[in-house]
């Protein structure tokens, strides 16, 4: 038990903790003094109650579904991104052909694609997974492609004199070099992935957090909406933490603190 470690940890987290406490205090004060109507800003206690009461039958199952859509979407998006990068590693012309397309397609708003996918794939899980996958694919693929190409030319020269074939260069030099950048892209992806899933549910669904939101907003069940927002925020934070842990496992040489990279 080292008090120094505790003190360092306290110094790192204290400012954020104080901010949270202050916001919470302001929230409690505003609602307790009834400065705003309850349907605009519900009391923290009401939100907590709504979360706990609705969890077993409604919010819990909806969270599970949205979570599955999010995870599947991230998984598929990352798999396709890595596959594209590997193929373009073996056939550089593929990478050169795809990059402008990738950059351009990143500009297409998900808001437009979502409803179209619902028309094409129905009200089930499929269009949500596709929306999340699309959103996750681009940052990961673009960052990896850039990383694979940015390896110092003299380093490549050196490895070529050390018997490295094109294949060996890709797997032993280019891909490991690009991996931390891929993770930087993934961090951006997972932050928005749950929101993308919820948005896809907005455009047509029968379950999920997005579906619950669509139902509770017209009914002015603001406390329930707040509870859903909290669950979504937790989901994003958990995903971000998971990516950070994964990055430390996959790229332990990358000593730059993961928390510092901006999403």
């Amino acid at each position: 038990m080292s008090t120094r470690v505790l003190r360092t940890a306290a110094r790192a987290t204290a400012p954020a903790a104080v901010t949270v406490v202050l916001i919470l205090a302001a929230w409690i004060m505003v609602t307790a003094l009834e400065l705003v109507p309850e349907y605009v800003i519900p009391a923290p206690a009401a939100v907590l109650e709504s979360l706990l009461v609705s969890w077993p039958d409604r919010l819990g199952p909806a969270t599970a579904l949205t979570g599955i859509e999010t995870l599947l979407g991230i998984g598929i998006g990352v798999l396709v991104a890595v596959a594209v990068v590997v193929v373009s590693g073996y056939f550089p012309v593929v990478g050169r052909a795809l990059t402008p397309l990738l950059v351009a397609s990143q500009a297409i708003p998900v808001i437009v694609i979502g409803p179209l996918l619902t028309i094409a794939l129905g009200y089930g899980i499929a269009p949500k997974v596709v929306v999340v996958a699309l959103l996750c694919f681009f940052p990961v693929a673009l960052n990896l492609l850039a990383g694979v190409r940015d390896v110092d030319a003299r380093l490549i020269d050196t490895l070529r004199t050390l018997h490295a074939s094109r294949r060996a260069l890709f797997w032993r030099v280019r891909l490991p070099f690009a991996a931390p950048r891929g993770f930087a892209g993934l961090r951006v992806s997972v932050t928005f992935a749950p929101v993308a899933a919820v948005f896809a549910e907005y455009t047509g669904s029968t379950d999920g957090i997005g579906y619950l939101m669509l139902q509770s907003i017209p009914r002015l069940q603001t406390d329930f909406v707040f509870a859903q927002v909290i669950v979504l925020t937790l989901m994003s934070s958990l995903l971000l933490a998971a990516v950070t842990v994964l990055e430390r496992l996959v790229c332990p040489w990358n000593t730059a603190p993961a928390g510092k990279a901006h999403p």
Partner: protein
Amino acid sequence: MSVVLAHTVVSPDRSERPAVDSPEVDSPAVSSSAFGSPAVDLRALGYAYPGTRHRVVADLDLTVPAGGHLAVVGRSGCGKSTLLSLIAGLEEPATGTAAVLGDRRPEQRLASCALMPQGDSLLPWLSVLDNVAISLRNQGASRRDARAAAHAMLDRVGLAAWARARPAALSGGMRQRAALARALLARKPVLLADEPLAALDAITRAEVQQWLRTSIAATTATTGPSAIATTPTTPTTLVTVTHDVDEALLLAERVVLLARPEPAAPARITATWSGWFGDDRPREDLVGDPDFAATRQSILRALAHPGIMPPSGEVA
């Protein structure tokens, strides 16, 4: 303008140096007669960067005998690194020819040369051991065999205790030693060192220079026809590119100046001197030697005024 770098071209005043009978160095007669073709042979070489017509080097002639140690000095941007790329078959000459061990084909030149680049070239995601083993892994050796060979090589450069560490845990000097171990394990007959110690501070650089002098000499002498060389009859040939004049004189028997005779002209070899490689006195003694100091002075003067040929150097 041609400079033939054979051991036989030694200035008279230097022939009495103790270095000549130092046991680590092959006698000149052996190096030039036992191996038919020189290790490196550049003739009327010219090169322009792709897409440009401006010649970086032109009319460059340079020969390094097998087992020889040559240093190329020159100011920044005069094409020293390009020269190494041309030798290694990473670039092709626009005019003239480049041959390594008598072979002009780029893939054969690449097969004969190992490059030790400037700065940090170890892969940060691999352990020191796996970095050193990479050339064997690239050749299809099993992880176990490659690591065993790499471990033996690390032992020789005094880094066995650091085998499992990542490069980031090593000091700059240790990383350069690991980079040398990696290059040696590639078992190439020609080792091309591009500013190998430029990233080190002055004190560490002096230490590693001293260490390199003894370990390169050991490599050439004890393994001339064995572990390091691909062909059993070819000892390791070293070409070092540097802007550190002391380093050039310490690591080579011959030092050549690569310079532009006029400001916009392409670079070529404009002068050559004898170096102190093989003189087994410690670095500090050599650097204080009046002959050494005079040669250093001559090279520095030539570096500062490439147009004027140095009086004491052997003018090409």
